[in-house]
């Protein structure tokens, strides 16, 4: 039985082709995913991300709990509203999920986890809490919906639809959030463009969706979300990493904080195992499309594509690939597509940020 978000009817009304995504019936596109992609890079688009799960971590034990649970250190969060990207690891150092933590105060954090991993994450967190016994609660906020408005004109359009949020969020810096009445307005996203992710009680979500439509914001589906995040060099859980992959091998080393004496789940394994691969970008130099699980042949050994697609911005196929450590950017490698080998150039992601091609 697939689940539906509160915006299901709005998607059908906008002509969405719906697909099963992690147990949720979500829009793949509303006609053309390439046009939706360009709308976000050039103007503005919106995504229903209500399938993602917000979880409140509240109580005096919240901070020590998250410091032990997550590979990144929430102690780095000092200003209210600041957000932090982190992996949640298993004891062998594999990635259970990747998530965003929002800091409100030292006894109140909110984390947002992936839809398909939410049930697993909640069970894992509940078990760790039972084991460690901190004084705090874990509360999934399924009554909250989430709409991401992304693109160079996203903030202006969002303020048109939500004039009451303009004053509070006009000076909001990237990777910060601010509560406005029942809403949480965060300057975050998964596209490489400016914009907001707006969390709100589900009953208000259809009205906000409608107001954004009237402000000229284009509905965008999971198809465009995938090409946008890949161009932005952002990982997708289940594809670029999972429980069998170390965050160090998945290009997430920047979000792993091994400093000092802080212990966290998976730290010992990460230190013992070290890093064996690098997650780098590929640009296909010939016609064709790069796809996940295609083999990569390099001068330093074999690699594999973890995410591949046709980039609407570059008009070329691009990929994230797990490659041997010795592979350097600028090198040419070969990718096996069906029965032939095709040349590709190794680049450092992101491919595109803020509408600009960077590779």
């Amino acid at each position, binding site marked *: 039985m697939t689940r539906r978000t509160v915006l299901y009817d709005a998607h059908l009304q906008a002509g969405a082709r719906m697909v099963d995504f992690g147990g949720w019936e979500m829009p793949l596109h509303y006609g*053309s995913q390439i046009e939706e992609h360009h709308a976000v890079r050039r103007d503005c688009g919106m995504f229903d991300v209500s399938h993602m799960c917000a979880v409140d971590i509240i109580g005096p034990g919240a901070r020590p709990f998250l410091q032990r649970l997550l590979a990144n250190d929430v102690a780095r969060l000092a200003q209210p509203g600041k957000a932090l990207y982190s992996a949640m690891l298993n004891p062998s150092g594999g990635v259970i999920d990747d998530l965003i933590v929002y800091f409100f105060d030292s006894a109140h954090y909110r984390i947002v986890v992936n839809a398909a991993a939410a049930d697993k994450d909640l069970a894992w967190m509940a078990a760790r809490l039972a084991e460690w016994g901190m004084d705090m609660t874990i509360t999934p906020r399924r009554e909250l919906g989430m709409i991401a408005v992304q693109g160079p004109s996203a903030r202006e359009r969002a303020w048109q639809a939500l004039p009451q949020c303009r004053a509070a969020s006009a000076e909001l810096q990237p990777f910060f959030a601010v509560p406005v009445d029942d809403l949480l307005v965060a300057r975050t996203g998964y596209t490489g463009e400016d914009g907001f992710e707006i969390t709100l009680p589900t009953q208000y979500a259809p009205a906000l969706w409608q107001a954004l439509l009237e402000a000229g914001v284009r509905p965008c589906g999971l198809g465009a979300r995938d090409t946008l995040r890949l161009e932005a060099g952002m990982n997708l859980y289940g594809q670029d990493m999972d429980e069998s992959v170390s965050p160090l091998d998945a290009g997430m080393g920047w979000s792993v904080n091994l400093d000092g004496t802080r212990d966290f789940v998976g730290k010992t394994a990460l230190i013992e195992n070290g890093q064996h691969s690098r997650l780098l970008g590929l640009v296909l130099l010939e016609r*064709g*499309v790069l796809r996940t699980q295609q083999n990569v042949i390099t001068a330093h050994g074999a690699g594999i594509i973890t995410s591949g697609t046709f980039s*609407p911005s570059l008009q070329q196929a691009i990929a994230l690939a797990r490659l041997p450590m010795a592979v350097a950017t600028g090198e040419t490698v070969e990718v096996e597509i069906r029965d032939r080998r095709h040349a590709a150039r190794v680049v450092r992601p992101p491919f595109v940020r803020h509408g600009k091609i960077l590779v």
Partner: protein
Amino acid sequence: MSIPATLKYTPSHEWVRLEADGSITVGITDHAQALLGDMVFIELPTVGKSAAAEEQVAVVESVKAASDIYAPVAGVVTEANQNLADAPERVNEDAYAAWLFKMQPASVADVDGLLDAAGYASEIGA
């Protein structure tokens, strides 16, 4: 969903037009292009290639997925639509105008054995 009555079809979503000279023109159906979404790459067959019926001869790739294209009947590929190499989106714009390749069938009678429009419609539940 458009399914012209003048064409023949395969269960793997190719459309086939029998020409006056006994050759066939092959493309993918409107239903198939809608399922695949925005087309970004087409690997056309080599002219002169001999293919058995249902042998894979081409590949169409949308942003979403790659999909094999099969020879509807046995025969030899006589022409490939190179115009699509630079403009694969034409398949989305008009699937029945954007043909992929032409074949000389080993037996024209094989073409009669393909699905008609009503047969294809019931195949896709239209």
